[in-house]
């Protein structure tokens, strides 16, 4: 029982941290612009410099670090085929909501159906 509680606590931490991280990183990269295009015009050093100087990027990396250590924690208790998909799929649903609110992405019916199917898949994985 303790093992299960540890696992789901760690999975919750992964979801919250990586969702915040994803939103920050996505925002940072939209500010930086198309990496391929920028690389061709100004070179790789400029691209890396612009990414590393972006405060949203730094915030995103911090959140991802928390998510990574939570993942290590969860993996020491549970199989990769439960932790990996459960955390990633829950993150996907949380991200659909967060991307709509914070990033103003157009999350249409197609994307919502996908989110619900993913949530169903997660329930099956955890069953």
């Amino acid at each position, binding site marked *: 029982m303790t093992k299960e509680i540890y696992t789901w606590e760690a999975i919750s931490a992964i979801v919250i941290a990586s969702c915040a991280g994803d939103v920050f990183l996505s925002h940072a990269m*939209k500010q930086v612009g198309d990496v391929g295009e920028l690389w061709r015009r100004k070179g790789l050093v400029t691209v890396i410099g612009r990414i590393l100087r972006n405060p949203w990027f730094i915030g995103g990396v911090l959140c991802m670090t928390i998510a*990574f250590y939570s993942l290590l924690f969860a993996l020491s208790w549970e199989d*990769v085929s439960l932790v990996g*998909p459960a955390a990633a799929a829950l993150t996907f649903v949380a991200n659909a909501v967060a991307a709509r609110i914070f990033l103003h992405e157009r999350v249409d019916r197609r994307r919502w159906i*996908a989110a619900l199917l993913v949530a169903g898949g997660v329930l*099956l994985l955890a069953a």
Partner: protein
Amino acid sequence: MTSSKYLVLAGVTVCAAAGDSLLSRGMREVGNISFQNLPSIVLAILNPWVAIGIVFLLGFFASYMTALSWADLTYVLPATSLGYVLLALIAKFALHEQISVTRWLGILLISTGVGFVTRGPELTHNPSREISPRSARALAARQK
């Protein structure tokens, strides 16, 4: 979508699945980590499987950031969903974990759901291409 962009999405998928599997393999050698034994989570990085896993996760990070520079977050995440299937196959054949029919169904459902999204547009909102109110006013003033 150009072929190089599909290659970036494939990089995200493969590196994430390989990285997670290698971490899992390594963490099984490291053993359970508890709150009484927290420093061992830092030492876990010294395990070779965990170390190679981290290298793959860095590759994942680079390709993921590249994808996010030209596509929505709600496009990139589902578009790389084949990773779940890959993860299950690696878990079964390389890590010899038991995967029940229910878990297979779950993986299938996730892949179907997220496969939906890839048929839509990859970018729906790009703040960097929008004109700020100030530059819009400057543009209007110049045109007068």
